[in-house]
């Protein structure tokens, strides 16, 4: 059960890492690459805390085998800001004090970023639908909605940096 070489792009950088065939992308990111933004909540794809972008698409990284990311591009919460400038979503989350315990927030931000990339001016129900796969056990959804709505205005107006 030899380890295999995983070559992929993580947050814009080429990465080469030895992983076991039975390791998930989430574990490889956290344990081998030190990217502890994505969290393991349920481990079965129900909670969304492990959400990352794989080739630009929102996925539950706890359900992806690390080696399935070979040759592909992975983006985690650590790659959302550009050169120390926060993404408008992050800025809005900080300004409005959205995080409570914070555990779900990296996943929520990645879900919201995927939503705005496809649909820069989402309605409230589209925002709710866009983060329906992310559970917040502090139940802090109201502020998430407000912050995503505000950030969407910024993104749609082209004020993103």
């Amino acid at each position, binding site marked *: 059960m030899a380890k295999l070489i995983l070559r992929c792009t993580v947050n814009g950088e080429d990465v080469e890492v030895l992983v076991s065939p039975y390791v998930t992308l989430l574990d490889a990111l956290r344990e081998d690459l030190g990217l502890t933004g994505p969290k393991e909540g349920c481990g079965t794809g129900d909670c969304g805390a492990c*959400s990352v972008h794989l080739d630009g698409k929102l996925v539950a990284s706890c359900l992806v085998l690390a080696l399935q990311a070979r040759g592909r591009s992975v983006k985690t919460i650590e790659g959302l800001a550009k050169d120390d400038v926060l993404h408008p979503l992050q800025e809005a989350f900080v300004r409005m004090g959205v995080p409570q315990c914070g555990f779900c927030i990296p996943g929520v931000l990645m879900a919201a970023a995927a939503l705005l990339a496809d649909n820069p001016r989402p309605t409230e129900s589209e925002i709710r639908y866009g983060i329906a796969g992310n559970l917040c056990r502090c139940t802090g959804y109201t502020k998430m909605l407000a912050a995503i709505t505000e950030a969407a205005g910024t993104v749609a107006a082209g004020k993103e940096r």
Partner: protein
Amino acid sequence: MRRFELAVPTSVDDCLKAMAGQGTAVKLVAGGTDLLPQLKNSLLNPALVVDLSGVKELRALERDAAGGLRIGAAVTARELELDPRVRAEYPAIAESAALVGSIQIRNLATVGGNLCNAAPSADMAPPLIALEAEAVIAGPKGRRRVPLASFFQGVRRTALEPDELLLELVVPRPAPRSGGNYLRHTPRRELDIAVVGVASQLTLGDGVCAKARIVLASVAPTPVRAPEAEHALEGQPLTAERIEAAATLAVSAASPISDQRGSAEYRRHLVRVLTRRTLITARERAGA
């Protein structure tokens, strides 16, 4: 997770070679949304997992020579949900795909996985059966086609031999003046498993219903057709009374169990309600 070896083939032939002689010690992984939870809690302990994500042939989503639709087994639920042609010509397929898990799940989960996992509640099965899709299966002896209706043989049991894999679905083009709809009932709106699911597909003729297909999920070990209800509609005008009568007849095709999601009686009630609603929407979409 228990340890296993991973094969990463790039062609269907290489997949079949990797699977050959492994019997039940091999499992295939595409989106992983059903397999990984089962690996994590040791419901499955394969020695070898074959990753299908590098096999291009399984990702086709295109019109076939006869004007129907070829859906590769590794096409994701999200692709089917968003594809403009699927939404326009096969809305029930897009509707059922949109109900699978969350966006995080649908970007991974594949139609082939949903079917091969063969849960009685699989949302993508009923509309595909109602549209008379065929499953194209690849194995060491070549390729064969089976009607999707006979692909399901029991809870988590399919027509696939251990050394075979599902290649694609071929969905015939519906006749002109056809319409379909899939609805399911869940206690929550998102991320839940169907208590009952119903797909209806209608083709209109000269003032009457030329063809009706009604398929039920979550009320038997496999998805089931409701032939008595179909017969009650075919050759008849699609009046509200006929639809109500067909909805009542559909209940006889269901053999539901009682579990934490709903009692058998509640499920029978839902079959009637959802059959009626899907027939009304299917009729509307067919242009009645």
